């Protein structure tokens, strides 16, 4: 079987959230760690859109940042096109990877430097990675990118504050495309945008994918957006992937109890007031997560095994009840 284009291999990230050294010595405390991501593993095929979905504390944004090298993993790694991704260090090989990998961020206001003109913002990847030589070539490419995302070449000489949120996100997309990337990681790309603007940006992203053969990793908490965009979806809960589903399957036949609960809880425009199972409890603190399967306090199918043993991923779902073929009476 050919190796998938992007492989995430048992990626883990612990954050040190201990009290300062002096406090620990005086109070006799141990170091405390927050397990933000716990052995996450999945593959992304070339040209597809993989979505990581989850609520707060699920670790999805942390996975994204480790993939692009903004955060060093505590354990595990990832490869793109066979090349291993090492976080942080600046080498020639890493630069090759940097070209292939780009990111779009959630906040269209903080993701563009307010003091820079648009032209400079979009040209930064080209200049930093030395992809083109000469002012003329770079300017031409910037104009090309602006047109590609639905803006005008004249917009290059303006400042970010002259644009709306949706337009800024387009600029961010243009910047991400500047290095001719193969994979674009999108961290909540439309969460900060109005609904009608979101539609424009999502459609644009799809069009660009068709046009340029891009692969997307989309991080989102919005299940409807994920259904519209994703070819595969991974559901995360407290740092672990609990289920991976293809296309509509995840939404039509959710298997993991958390996925079911999540889909049931989303307020639905088209079938309002439908009967729902009441959601139990809230997400526990990631600093001291429940032992065993982290979802067990809220799970209607939890048994003793769930309370001590963390379930392994079997056939794209991590749940003892499914493995044991148990279901609600």
């Amino acid at each position, binding site marked *: 079987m050919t190796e998938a284009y992007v492989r995430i291999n048992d990626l883990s990230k612990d954050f040190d959230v201990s009290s300062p050294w002096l406090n620990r010595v005086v109070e006799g405390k141990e170091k405390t760690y927050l397990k933000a991501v716990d052995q996450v593993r999945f593959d992304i095929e070339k040209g597809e859109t993989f979505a990581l979905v989850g609520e707060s504390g699920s670790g999805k944004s942390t996975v994204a940042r480790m993939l692009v090298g903004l955060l060093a993993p505590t354990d595990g790694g990832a490869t793109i096109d066979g090349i291993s991704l090492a976080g942080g260090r600046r080498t020639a090989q890493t630069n090759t990877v940097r070209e292939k990998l780009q990111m779009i961020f959630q906040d269209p206001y903080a993701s563009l430097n307010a003091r820079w003109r648009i032209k400079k913002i979009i040209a930064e990847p080209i200049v930093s990675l030395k992809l083109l030589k000469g002012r003329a070539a770079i300017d031409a490419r910037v104009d090309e990118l602006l047109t590609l995302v639905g803006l005008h070449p004249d917009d290059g000489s303006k400042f970010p504050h002259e644009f709306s949120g949706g337009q800024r996100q387009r600029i961010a997309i243009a910047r991400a495309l500047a290095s001719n990337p193969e994979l674009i990681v999108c961290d909540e790309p439309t969460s900060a945008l109005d609904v009608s603007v979101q539609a424009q940006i999502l459609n644009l992203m799809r069009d660009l994918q068709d046009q340029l053969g891009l692969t997307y990793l989309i991080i989102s*908490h919005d299940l409807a957006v994920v259904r519209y965009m994703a070819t595969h979806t991974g559901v995360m809960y407290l740092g672990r992937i609990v289920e991976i589903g293809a296309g509509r399957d995840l939404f039509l036949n959710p298997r993991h109890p958390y996925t079911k609960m999540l889909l049931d809880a989303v*307020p639905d425009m088209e079938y309002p007031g439908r009967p729902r199972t009441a959601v139990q409890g809230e997400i526990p603190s990631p600093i001291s997560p429940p032992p065993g399967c982290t979802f067990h306090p809220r799970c209607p199918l939890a048994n003793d095994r769930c309370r001590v043993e963390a379930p392994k991923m079997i056939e794209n779902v991590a749940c003892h009840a499914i493995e044991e073929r148990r279901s609600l009476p």
Partner: protein
Amino acid sequence: MQSVLSVRDLRVDFITRRGALHAIDGVSFDIAPGEILGLVGESGAGKSVTGSAVIGLIDPPGKISGGEILLNGDRIDTLPAEKMRKIRGKRIGMIFQDPLTSLNPLYRIGEQLVQTICAHLPLDAKQARVRAIKLLEDVGIPAPDQRIDSYPHEFSGGMRQRVVIALALCAEPDLVIADEPTTALDVSVQAQVIALLKQICADRGTAVILVTHDMGVIAEAADRVAVMYAGRIVEIGPVAEVIRAPRHPYAAGLMGAIPSLTSDRDRLEQIEGAMPRLSNLPEGCAFHPRCTQATDQCRQARPDLNANGAHAVACFLHEGDHI
């Protein structure tokens, strides 16, 4: 039956050195007791400003420049600050978006509840505390008699928002304004809070203005919905009707742009362009530059909300409709 809240031709302007910006330009609606009215729109449409105007929290350079706001028949937009303060909390409660900043982190929630109760109702501290515990129980806080002495940071996000709801309801107001009450919460918690809001208001007969940009929340929680655009209401009617069969081109475009959780969409509907800035409002109908069906009349004159029964639209294309 008399409306709890009656807003007639409300206008709110923000005075800048470049002239007056019409943040709200002639908004009218009524709310019946126990009804939940959704106020939906995108950023800059004026929905939050409407909520602020009703509760009297418009600060300079903004001011109410026209229209009337009637609470149970009494005019409140012309009240002096002192009287408005008494109404706030007692007769109109408010729920803000961020539960982290709505509660004072330095005070136990019991203290905040008791303070508010005593400020508006003729009860002493002991009676107020009993009442506060009952309220916490009503909003679903487990072990309320113990948790009443907890600090806000000891609660999770969803629990905090429940406390905020309790705070808004403690003086038994006739009307509650909820400004994006679920936006900062996780999805699974959102559902809980929406259900709570509906149940509480049904039990007490409190009317609610639910301001949000999330149509899903409106669909679940509201009885009627008003869609706002550039400071005006463009469509108002029963929730199911407006969502399934929107008439105004903007409302229709909005519904079409929302991705669906339960069905497949080939492509999301796109409304070209963006909502105009208040400093740059077009002549005539504010939506006409983006409307695929705009006529000359739309470019020159501004359509009014023509109410045919419960469902009203502000659009020349639907003037003669019988709904």
